[in-house]
């Protein structure tokens, strides 16, 4: 029989960075476990991509295969899937704890809530990226489009950067969801405008002028531009270059992160003032 006295103890992890890394890792691991514990993950990740590509296939059956228009289409479906999961990711980050009844236990931890939420959002966004890759693969196989990227290295770099900017946007959305009672409404009503504004469906340049400021404020708009420049031969989009797109995206992503961390302080203050963030 073990007694409480026999319990091993040790020094705390208390380095500023090592502490955050530990929490991020723990949050990512737990989110992954929770994700795979629910068989519903099959729907957004396997079934939805198939349906996306199927619809596109029937719509554009007559197109000559191998054209860059089809590559554009497949890429667009993938990017759209990624956006969808980002929005899902933010709703399901700390929002998950809210309805799971673990908000209080999470808030009681000696670590800012933002780091726990960031882990959740990173995993969920990564899962969106895998989902996009999956759409890309089946789409390409289906249309028999050769995957001739203009610049594979630049494509990869832009993809990773877009993933990070989507995550930071997801983190910012999380705070808005937590601070607002009508969080679900906001995410749902944002989904379509965001798809359009960031140019997943068609290039931003085709948008009515009033949308442009909104589109330009969304970091992934620039990421998607950069991805297209690196992927599509002869792509004509915004008058910016690949590197200009990348720099603007990084700057906006950092601004999102700063704002998200600031708003998380507000969320924590709100929780302390009211004693709860749980939904009843």
């Amino acid at each position, binding site marked *: *029989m*073990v*007694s*409480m*006295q*026999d*319990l*091993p*103890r*040790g*020094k*705390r*992890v*208390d380095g500023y960075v090592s*502490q955050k890394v*530990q*929490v991020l*890792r*723990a*949050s990512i*691991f*737990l989110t992954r*476990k*929770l994700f795979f*514990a*629910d068989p519903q993950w099959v729907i957004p990740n396997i079934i939805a991509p198939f349906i996306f590509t199927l619809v596109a296939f029937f719509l554009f059956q007559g197109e000559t295969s191998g054209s860059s228009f089809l590559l554009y289409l497949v890429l667009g479906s993938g990017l759209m899937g990624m956006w969808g999961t980002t929005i899902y990711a933010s709703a399901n980050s700390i929002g998950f704890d809210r309805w*799971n*009844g*673990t908000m*209080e*236990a*999470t*808030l*009681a*931890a*000696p*670590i800012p809530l933002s780091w*726990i939420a960031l882990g959740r959002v990173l995993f969920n966004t990564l899962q969106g990226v895998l989902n996009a890759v999956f759409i890309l693969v089946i789409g390409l196989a289906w249309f028999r489009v050769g995957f001739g990227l203009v610049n594979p290295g630049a494509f990869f770099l832009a993809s990773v950067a877009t993933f990070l900017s989507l995550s930071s946007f997801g983190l910012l959305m999380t705070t808005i969801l937590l601070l607002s009672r009508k969080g679900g409404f906001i995410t749902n009503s944002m989904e379509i405008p965001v798809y359009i504004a960031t140019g997943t469906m068609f290039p931003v340049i085709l948008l009515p002028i009033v949308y442009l400021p909104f589109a330009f404020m969304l970091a992934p708009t620039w990421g998607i531009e950069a991805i297209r420049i690196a992927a599509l031969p002869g792509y004509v989009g915004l008058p910016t270059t690949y590197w200009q797109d990348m720099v603007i995206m990084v700057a906006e992503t950092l601004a999102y992160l700063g704002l998200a961390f600031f708003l998380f302080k507000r969320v924590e203050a709100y*929780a*302390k*003032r*009211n*004693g709860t963030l749980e939904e009843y």
Partner: protein
Amino acid sequence: MGEKTTTAESQIWAVSVKGLTREYTTRNFFGGVTRTTWALSGIDFQIANGELFGLIGPNGAGKTTTIKILTTLLTPTGGDALILGLNVRKDLYEIRRRIGIVFGGERGLYNRVTAVDNLRYFSDLYGVDPKVAKERIPKLLEIVGLAGREKERVEKYSRGMKQRLHIAKALVHDPELIFLDEPTIGLDPAGARDIRNMVRDLKAQGKTILLTTHYMFEAEELCQRVGVISKGKIVALDTPSELKNMVRDISVIDLRTYGATMDYVEALRAIPDVVRVVADLESEQQSIRIQTPMGADLLPKVVASLPAGAKIIDRTIKEPTLEDAYLRLVEE
């Protein structure tokens, strides 16, 4: 008590609460205040290092509010509280690292994953060295009697197992001070006894414990000192035996009856010398508790008031318990 809290004071007191108040405002859709409730209207108490202190009171008395403030989850409206010498308004993370919290009820666990997954996760949030956690978690699971079931999803656990996991979770980071908010609520008698045994073990390990409950025998059995809280005020604070002294002038008649109704309870209350009657009429057999200075001498009148068709199955004359003192305190 001095006006200022000195270091020496914090070496004695694990918890020191002065003039603590908390107001809740409920707002309507447009942000206007619809109602304000004073959940705590100025409470004071201290808990010594290594002490097992109980806070008892009826529903809505302010027990959870007190615990939330002391665990830094809720800002007080007024007053001060020091936890291990640290200020609940300012030293949030340092306090959180050194305390463990067990809330009663089903909430607070990730049900879709295993007990080990839950404990690993919370270990990491509390900055426990992963090497230490790896050895500590299996032992903790053994202590709380979950060894062998640790690879199952928590959703398959019984209510009692979940509560034991809650305790393990509160202990992952080896806290000095442990808060338990109604830890046995909703448990079957065996499950509740397991939890009480664990609380006793923790005390034996030198941990300081603040326990809230509305089961008086639990407080009487476990706690060295008890604060009785009612409507946001501490109405008495002493050892269980001193609190019982308040009611040493009375004795208790416990009845088990068949077919008794509220009318009978009212008839009992009308008898002179009956101080208080508490009845549970819900089940097929009713239990009725009569407080009286008369003791057994009251029995003839008790029997005489019995309506036709009702029966007394069993009766016992008892010494008053903490429950009797409590009933007097929360009624006044």
